[in-house]
C-alpha cells in the first residue's frame, strides 16, 4: 500500500451534475484564461506571410504536372519573383537532352584555390547571400594526401596558390548511385536521364535526411528566408534549377541546369581563370571530357569505396 494516506477530498461536484456557482465561475475562469494563453501563444503567426497560398499548398509533384499545369506554375513563379525582386524573370522547364550524360572533371594540378567558382555559382544560381549558401566548397589540401579531414576550409592568405598545398573544390558529385535520392521520403530529389540529380523545391518537406546522407556534404538547407540583393538576381531561370528557393527547402548544385540543358558550360567552369574545370557529354567521344577520361591515367573519385559512383573525376597533369 502507499506510504501515506492521500488527501481524500477531491474537487468533484457535490451532487450529480450540478456545480455550485463559485466553482463553476472558477472553472470557467481557468478555461477562459487558458484559452487566452493558447491564442496568445500563437500570436507570432501574425507575421506568417510565407505559407498562405492554397495554390502552392496543393501543387502537384513535378513528374505529375501536365504541360498546361507546368505553364501555370512557371507563370506563378515569374509573378512571385517579380513581386519580390522587381525583375520579371524568364522561368523555363528544361527537359534533359537525349544521348547526353554529363560528367565533370577537375584538374587538381591547375586549381589555384581562388574561389571564383564559388562566387560565380552563387551569382548564377540566385543563392542566398545572408545567410550564406554556397554549393561549392574549396578545400586546401596538403601535398600527398586526399584525406578530406586534412583539408582546410577557411584559408585566407594574401595570395594563392600556397606552396606545399593543392586545392580541391567539392560540390554535388551527381552520383550514379545517389544516397540522397534513396533516402528522400517523398521523392523530392531524383536523378534525371542526363545524370543531374535534381530537387523539386515545391515538393521538398525539409526533413534534411538527404543532407545527412550525402557523403560529400553537397546539399544545403534554407534555414530561413533566403535574401538575394535585387541588383544581383539572375533572371534566366529554370524550374529545377536557379529559381529562387524558399524557407525550409533543400537545394544543391545542379550543374547549372538552366545553362547546360541549352548547351552551355556551367558558370563555375566559365569563370575559372586557370581552366581547371572540364565538363561535357561523356556519350560524345569527341568531347574534351571523353578525351580526358581516355588519356589521363589516374582519376580520383572521392570516397569511391562508398559505392556512390560519382560523375565527378579529379585528376592531375603533373
Amino acid at each position, binding site marked *: 500500500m502507499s506510504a501515506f494516506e492521500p488527501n481524500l477530498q477531491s474537487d468533484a461536484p457535490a451532487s450529480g451534475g450540478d456545480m455550485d456557482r463559485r466553482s463553476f465561475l*472558477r472553472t470557467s475562469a481557468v478555461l477562459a484564461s487558458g484559452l487566452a494563453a493558447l491564442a496568445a501563444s500563437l500570436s507570432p503567426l501574425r507575421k506568417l506571410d510565407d505559407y498562405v497560398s492554397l495554390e502552392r499548398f496543393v501543387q502537384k509533384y513535378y513528374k505529375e504536372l501536365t504541360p498546361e499545369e507546368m505553364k501555370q506554375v512557371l507563370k506563378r513563379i515569374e509573378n512571385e519573383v517579380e513581386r519580390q525582386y522587381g525583375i520579371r524573370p524568364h522561368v523555363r522547364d528544361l527537359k534533359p537532352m537525349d544521348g547526353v550524360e554529363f560528367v565533370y572533371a577537375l584538374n587538381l594540378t591547375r586549381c589555384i584555390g581562388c*574561389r571564383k567558382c564559388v562566387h560565380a555559382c552563387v551569382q548564377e544560381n540566385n543563392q542566398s*547571400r545572408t545567410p550564406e549558401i554556397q554549393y561549392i566548397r574549396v578545400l586546401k589540401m596538403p601535398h600527398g594526401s586526399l584525406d578530406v579531414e586534412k583539408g582546410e576550409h577557411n584559408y585566407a592568405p594574401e*595570395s594563392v596558390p600556397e606552396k606545399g598545398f593543392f586545392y580541391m573544390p567539392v560540390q554535388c558529385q551527381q552520383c550514379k548511385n545517389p544516397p540522397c535520392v534513396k533516402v528522400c521520403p517523398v521523392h523530392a530529389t531524383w536523378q534525371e536521364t542526363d545524370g543531374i540529380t535534381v530537387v523539386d523545391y515545391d515538393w521538398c518537406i525539409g526533413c534534411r535526411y538527404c543532407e545527412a546522407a550525402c557523403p560529400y556534404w553537397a546539399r544545403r538547407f534554407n534555414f530561413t528566408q533566403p535574401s538575394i540583393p535585387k541588383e544581383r538576381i539572375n533572371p534566366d531561370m529554370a524550374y529545377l534549377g536557379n529559381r529562387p528557393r524558399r524557407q525550409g527547402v533543400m537545394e544543391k548544385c545542379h550543374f547549372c541546369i538552366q545553362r547546360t540543358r541549352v548547351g552551355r*558550360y556551367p558558370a563555375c567552369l566559365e569563370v575559372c581563370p586557370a581552366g581547371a574545370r572540364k565538363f561535357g557529354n561523356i556519350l560524345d567521344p569527341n568531347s574534351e571530357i571523353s578525351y580526358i577520361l581516355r588519356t589521363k591515367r589516374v582519376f580520383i573519385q572521392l570516397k569511391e569505396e562508398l559505392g556512390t559512383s560519382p560523375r565527378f573525376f579529379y585528376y592531375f597533369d603533373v
Partner: protein
Amino acid sequence: MNGRFKAAWVLRGLVVLFVGLAAAFLLDLWGRPTPLRAIPLVDPAFLDTATVRRSYADLVRAKEDLSDFDCYACHEKNKPPVLRYDEHQNLLIPTEHSDIVMGHGQHGRNNNCFNCHNETNLELLQTRDGRQVKFTDSSQLCGSCHGPTYEDWEAGAHGRISGYWNRSRGPIKRQDCINCHNPHSPPFPSRHPAPGPHLLHELTEAPARAETAH
C-alpha cells in the same frame, strides 16, 4: 475542506499564470530572432570571366593600338639586335623593354630571345626547327616544345574553353596559351583569393581557430 481550499487557490493561481503568460506572449518578451549580420557582397572582380592576359590576336580583333608591336619603329631592318649578358650569364633587358621579366625555364634556360623571336624578321616568331610563326598563331610556337600540353590544349583538356559544350547549339571560344601565360614568364600568376565561407551561427566556440584548424 482543506483539499478543496487548496484546489481553489491552485486554480486561482493558474488563472493568474495563464493571464501573465498571455501577456508575455503578446509582448514578445523572449526568443526574438537576432537580426543577421549582413555578409558583404563579393567584389564583382571575382565574377569576371576575363582571362589573365590579352593576346596579340585579341588586340587585333578589338582593333586596338598595335604600335607596341611595331618593332621596326626602333629597330633597323636586316640588323639583328645584339643580346647582352652579365657576368652570371643573365640576360640584360634593355630599358626600352624594361616591362619584360625573364622567367621562362629554370637555371637560365631560354636565356636567348631568339629561341622564340625571329632575329631576321622581328615581326615573326620562330620554332627551333625553323618554322616561321605569326604572332597571332603563337600557340604553335609554344606547342613546338610543349608537345603533351599542346595536344591536351587542342583537345580542350588544357586551358580555358567557354561557350557551348554542345557545339551544334553555339560556338566556343578557346583561349590561346598567352591568354593565361606570359611568354617571357609563363608560370600562372598567383592572386588574392575570394572570401571564404561563413558559418550560419558564427559560433563563438572557436573564433580565432579559422586560420589554423579546420
